[in-house]
Structures are given as structure tokens and as C-alpha cells.
């Protein structure tokens, strides 16, 4: 009996370890778990990414409450090839589909999180447009020439894995190679997904979370509750000491530096054959929802109004502020599809006007 028990434990855990070390296995499992709606389905992001970090029960709500279908445009003159580098605010169902973009016959979409650079390919018979999209909390670090080149330039600016100055660069690479071979880089997260990202565990997670939140006043470090208790925010977007925050004090000189940063990107890519570069900075939800009763740093409008700014910036802040709470999920760091549709409409107006 003991031997049978030991066999069962061994095979189960070995299976868990092997599965957790397999990209393909995890991909398949994620797909299946996120489809299921019962206790065997994944619960972490089903109700919003910030709910998944906190498990605060009042914020457990279906994400599709404000579902709006974004109408696909009919192909018209199709004169653009749109190269997009963007983040998770751009829903995958439209970010790779040219029918959603005015005058666009071809789209190439690269995520900021791409593990490998995906070089842009210029079209010979269409106007080449580069759309650089990023959420406000990340744009300072990401919307730089080097970061963009490292993701889409056929000749990247630098390799992020290089270790300049280290005498042991080769050893470090070998070391990393061995480690990656025997330990999946995200093994701990994968194991957590495998074993605990299941709806059946939700009551335990919610109870622990309630204990921490209502008794100890603690949430996940990355998440804050809005002052009106109706919205979850990423800490980095509301903490005035974090550079990505909408309340981070930003001087005019810094705004000027960001403008120069964006101008540099535009100049570079135009010199490489792009006809137009469009920037779009998505405002942090807290900057739109106005729940904190204090002024934001207005970084987006200050960039747009800066005397040195000559480029195109799609800033959906004003449009999103109308009926703002309908444009965001209370338990997610992203907008909902209504918010995305507003942005897409504004982008299409810009594309139309080019």
C-alpha cells in the first residue's frame, strides 16, 4: 500500500514538474483552463488581472460586462502598411487585423514583451506607418529609440543580454544556458498555475485575501484600491513616488526631455523609410477615472502642447473621460472593449487625415 502511495506521489509530481517545464504544455493547459467556467477552470485573470493579484471578492466580476463589438471597416483605398509596436491594451483580435484600421491593407504587430526581436518589413507599394503605442506608466522607459530598435529594427541597438564590463560574460552565458536547460525560467509561476490557478481554490484565496485586506489592511504590493473603493489600480500608476504614476511630479524640463526622446524616434524611423510615425500613449486608468480627488501630472497633454513637439500623438484621454467608468474594468489594469473602441476611433480619424 505504501509503495502504491509512493508511486502515485512520484508520478503525479514528476508529471507536474515535466508539464511545468514545458512551454507547449503550459500553453495548451492555459487555453483549456481559461475556456472552462467551472471549478477546474483558471480563475486568476478570468475576473480581471488585478482581481487575479488580490482576490478581493467584491471585485470578482465578469470582465465582459461592457462588451462592445468593434465594427470592422470595409477595405477602402488600402494605402497603408501599419507597423505597430504596442502592449496588451491593444486586443489581439483587432491589433493584427487590417480591417479595423482605416486605409490599411497590411498590419504587422509586435508586442513590447516579445521575447525575440521581430524586424519590420517596409512595403514597396504602400505608405509605411509606424504606430508606437504604450500605456502611460511604461512610456518613459519603453518609448525610447533603443528600446524600439531592440524590438523591431533589423539592426538592434544593443543586445539586452550582453554583460558589458564583466570578465565572466562567457561563463555567465554558459551558466544561463545550463540553468535554462534544467530549470524553466518561469517554473515557479508555472507550478503555481498548474496546482493552484483553479476555481476550486478561489474560496481559500479570497478568505486569505479578506484576512489580509480587511484586518491587516494589506493588498498585493502591486495593487491599490481607489479612494471610492470601486476600482483597483496598479500601484505604479497611483503612487506619486513611482515614475509611471499619473501623480509623479514632472517638471517642464522632463517633459521637454520626453518630447526630445519621441522626436528622436520619429527622426530615426523616418530616415529608415517610414512615411509617418504615430505615437499613442494610453492614459493610466487613474488619470481618466478621477477617483483620487487630486490633480494628475497631465503628462500627455503637456507633451502634446510642448513647443518642440511636431509629431502626431493620439491621446484618447479626453474622449475616455466621458462616462469614464464605462470604459474600464474595475478589477483590471486595462480598459474594456468600449475604451479600446474609443481609442480605435480616434486613431482611425488620425489615419484618415494623413
Amino acid at each position: 500500500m505504501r509503495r502504491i502511495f509512493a508511486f502515485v506521489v512520484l508520478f503525479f509530481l514528476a508529471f507536474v514538474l515535466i508539464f511545468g517545464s514545458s512551454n507547449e504544455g503550459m500553453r495548451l493547459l492555459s487555453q483549456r483552463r481559461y475556456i472552462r467556467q467551472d471549478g477546474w477552470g483558471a480563475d486568476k485573470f478570468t475576473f480581471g488581472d488585478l482581481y487575479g493579484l488580490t482576490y478581493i471578492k467584491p471585485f470578482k466580476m465578469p470582465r465582459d460586462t461592457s462588451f462592445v463589438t468593434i465594427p470592422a471597416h470595409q477595405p477602402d483605398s488600402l494605402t497603408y502598411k501599419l507597423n505597430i509596436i504596442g502592449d496588451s491594451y491593444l486586443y489581439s483580435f483587432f491589433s493584427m487585423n487590417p480591417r479595423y484600421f482605416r486605409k490599411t491593407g497590411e498590419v504587422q504587430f509586435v508586442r513590447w514583451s516579445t521575447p525575440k526581436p521581430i524586424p519590420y518589413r517596409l512595403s514597396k507599394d504602400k505608405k509605411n506607418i509606424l504606430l508606437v503605442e504604450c500605456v502611460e506608466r511604461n512610456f518613459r522607459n519603453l518609448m525610447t529609440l533603443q528600446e524600439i530598435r531592440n524590438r523591431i529594427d533589423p539592426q538592434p541597438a544593443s543586445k539586452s543580454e550582453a554583460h558589458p564590463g564583466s570578465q565572466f560574460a562567457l561563463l555567465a552565458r554558459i551558466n544561463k544556458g545550463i540553468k535554462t536547460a534544467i530549470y524553466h525560467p518561469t517554473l515557479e509561476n508555472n507550478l503555481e498555475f498548474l496546482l493552484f490557478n483553479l476555481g476550486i481554490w478561489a474560496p481559500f484565496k479570497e478568505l486569505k485575501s479578506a484576512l489580509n485586506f480587511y484586518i491587516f489592511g494589506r493588498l498585493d504590493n502591486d495593487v491599490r484600491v481607489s479612494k471610492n473603493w470601486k476600482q483597483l489600480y496598479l500601484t505604479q500608476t497611483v503612487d506619486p513616488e513611482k515614475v509611471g504614476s499619473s501623480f509623479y511630479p514632472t517638471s517642464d524640463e522632463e517633459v521637454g526631455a520626453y518630447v526630445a526622446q519621441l522626436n528622436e524616434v520619429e527622426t530615426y524611423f523616418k530616415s529608415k523609410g517610414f512615411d509617418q510615425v504615430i505615437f499613442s500613449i494610453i492614459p493610466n486608468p487613474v488619470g481618466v477615472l478621477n477617483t483620487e480627488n487630486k490633480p494628475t501630472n497631465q503628462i500627455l497633454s503637456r507633451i502634446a502642447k510642448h513647443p518642440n513637439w511636431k509629431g502626431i500623438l493620439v491621446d484618447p484621454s479626453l474622449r475616455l473621460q466621458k462616462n469614464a467608468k464605462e470604459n474600464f474594468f474595475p478589477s483590471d489594469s486595462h480598459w474594456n472593449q468600449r475604451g479600446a473602441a474609443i481609442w480605435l476611433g480616434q486613431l482611425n480619424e488620425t489615419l484618415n487625415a494623413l
Partner: protein
Amino acid sequence: MVFNSLQFLVFFGIVTSAYFLMAHKYRWLLLLLASCYFYMAFVPMYLGILALTIVIDYFAGILLEQHEGPTKKWILALSIVANVGVLAVFKYYQFIFNNISWFAHLLDIPVQMPVLSILLPIGLSFHTFQAMSYTIEVYRGNQKAERNFGIYSLYVMFYPQLVAGPIERPQNLIHQFYEPKHWDRHRVQSGLLQMVIGIFKKVVIADRLSMVVDEVYGNIGEQSGTNLVVAAIFYSFQIYCDFSGYSDVAIGAARVMGFRLMENFNAPYWATSIPEFWRRWHISLSTWFKDYLYITLGGNRVSVPRWYLNIMIIFVLSGLWHGASWNFVIWGALHGLFQLSGLILNRLFPFLAADQRKTWVGVWAYRLLTFFLVTMAWVFFRIAHFSSIKLWFSRMALMDFSSPLHVSMVSKEFYLCVFLIVGLFALEYKRGMVKERLETFFWLIFPVLILVTYFLGVFNMKQFIYFQF
């Protein structure tokens, strides 16, 4: 792979179940491979360094057994130099380099030494000392040289105690690898319980206390005296729960498979003197220094000044063992000075000697004094930079103890911290009896402890403090 991770949970389950399914003669191989895998989770390349010291000490052991007289001494010396050399290169090079540079700069002498930008191999001080204890014991004739290279490698690399001890002796551990181990329900339960208690200490107590400690020590300049005192006391218990928690998991994991590792802690804050504290704190290290260095230096069987010098040498080296930084040296030296002060005071005022106290008031007075001294010394252990240590004392000198505690932790959680500390302290008074009771009600206590650990645990994957040594 830290003990408070899912990776370890899965790893431990696989290794242990495979261990009991496997024939005894292959078990050492399984444990050796598992230990290699465990160590490679940190920095795989450092397995090479570990292998180097293993090879040197393995052959040194055999040669020591085959030779006598001066040759034998030379072999031991070479083996120790090799081990200490690895420590010197990987742990102390930068420290030595910085101090030589600083001194040369004072004398206006230009010094050029290459900078080594290397990571310290995890647990280096632990397994180096364990390897040295082997050659010393073979030299002394207390241990036969191990001929099976795999078994010797396993002695150095046995995964439960590979990165943070307990620092084992060959007489206690090596023979256990040869003994067949059978499934013993009570032993397995006792081991699992100790593991869960260790995790509880780490994630429920240590990591919770660290929220206050890190906040206060992260900005010393703006803290009141109350905050500094609370953080200092919390740190005393944080480091205890962190390190003893690790030891509990290590000892428990080994016990599940049938191995007996030495206990590393014995209610240290119940000590009524500094010497007693060191008989209860990190026992495997303090006995290592006593057995292999203090006694070799003559111990207390020498002139009084020399005896005092021996004590100071041991404590300063013990400080340096912890880290290549002056704050650790000062921490060790402080403990040495406390001990010497006690010895001198005992000589001058024998009626005040800690050993002579009879009443409970006297006992508690000495206990509190000991805790106060240990806690003061921990300040040097916790704060690496002199400027911050100076700031700590300057803030304390303001005597601002009337301000209420001002930290971001809410009062309910703060009281929970106090409750946990007091509870731990109280339970340790009768730890033998408590352990026995817990084991008796295993099927009730074990799941309850797991649930309590889950609900009250602070799961931030924070590394154990002693991993850095």
C-alpha cells in the same frame, strides 16, 4: 530553489517518494543527483567549485590516513589552504582588495588589483566548513577516510543542509548513508511536522516581522527611538525565525528520509548569559569553532590573557565567517567583548556571576540583559554601512521614546507580531514537551498548521537570510 517555494515542494516530494521506492544500494546516487540538481537551481556553474573542493578533500582524506608525522600535517595544511583559498577568492577577495586599497590610499601608495565581479557561491561558508571538518576529523583519527567518492560527495552536498547547514560532522553523517532506512510512520510524521513548523517560522513570523524591520532600517534617518527599538527587537526574532526555520526544514526533510542531522538551535533567547546564548544559537557553527579552532588554540588551558585572546579570535573569525564586511567583524567582536566582560566581572564580583543567580528575578534580569546585548549586536549585523550605523546611534541618542510607533503596518498586525513572538518564546520554554504533544496529535496539528501557515503566511519568496553566507 528556496525551501519556501513550490519548486522545493515538488522536488522534495519526487526525491522522497523515489527514495523509498528505490533499493537501498542506489539511494545514495539518487540523493547525490538530487543534491546536484538542487544546488544548480542557484548558479549551475558553482557546482564546479563545489566539485573542486570535494575532489581535493576526498583525496586529502585518503592521504591523511596513509601518512603519519609531518607529512600528515602538511596534507592537512594543504587541504585547509585549498578550502580557505576558495573562500578567500570567492568571498573575501573584494573585501581584502578594498581594505588594501583604502590603506594604500592613506599612505599615498598606488595599488592596482583586478576587480572580480563574481557572485558569491550560495552556502559556500557552510559546505566549506563541513568539508574541512571531514579532513580534520580524519587527521585526528576520529573518522576513517571515505573511499566511496559518491558517498563523500553526498556528505558535502546532502541537499537539505547544503546551503545553510547545519554544518555536520562526518562521524554523525557519513555512516548514515550506509545504513538502510525503512519507512517509519512516526519518524516521517515527525519530520514533516518539523518542516511545516520551519516554514511557519519563516513565512508567518520572520517575513511578517521583516515588513517592519525593512521599513525602519530602510530609512533610519527619519525614525523615532521607539521605531528603532521595536525594529531592533523584531530583527532579533526575524533572524532567529528565519534561520531556525531553515534549519527545521532541513532537519525535518532529512528526518523524513531517515537521517538525523544535529539540532542547530535550542531556544537561544532563553539564555541567561552570552556563553549560554552561543551554546543555543547556531550550535553547529559554534561547536565547529570550539572543536576545531578554540581547542586547537589552547582553549582556556593557557594563560588568562591568552585565553581572552583566544576568545576574541574565535568571535572575530565567527563574524568574518558570516560576511566579508566590517559590520560582521564588529558584530563578532562585540560578542567576544561581551563574553570577556562577563568573565572579568565574574572574577571581580563572583556574587554577581550569572551562574550564581538563584531567584527568578535574578534569572530574568540576566535573561533580559543577555537579550539586550544580543539585540544591540544584531544592529551591526543588520546594517552594513557605517554611516547608517552612526545614524542609528545618533537617532537613539535623541532618546525619542515618547513618540508612538509609526510604521505602515496596522496595529492589528503589529499585535499579531507581538503575539507570535511571545507565543514562540513561551512554547520554546518546554520545546521538548511541545514537540512530543504536537507529534501525538499529528493528524490534527499537521493540517491545521498548513492552513494557518497559508492564511497567515507572507508569501513573497523572500530568501533565507543565511543563504548569503
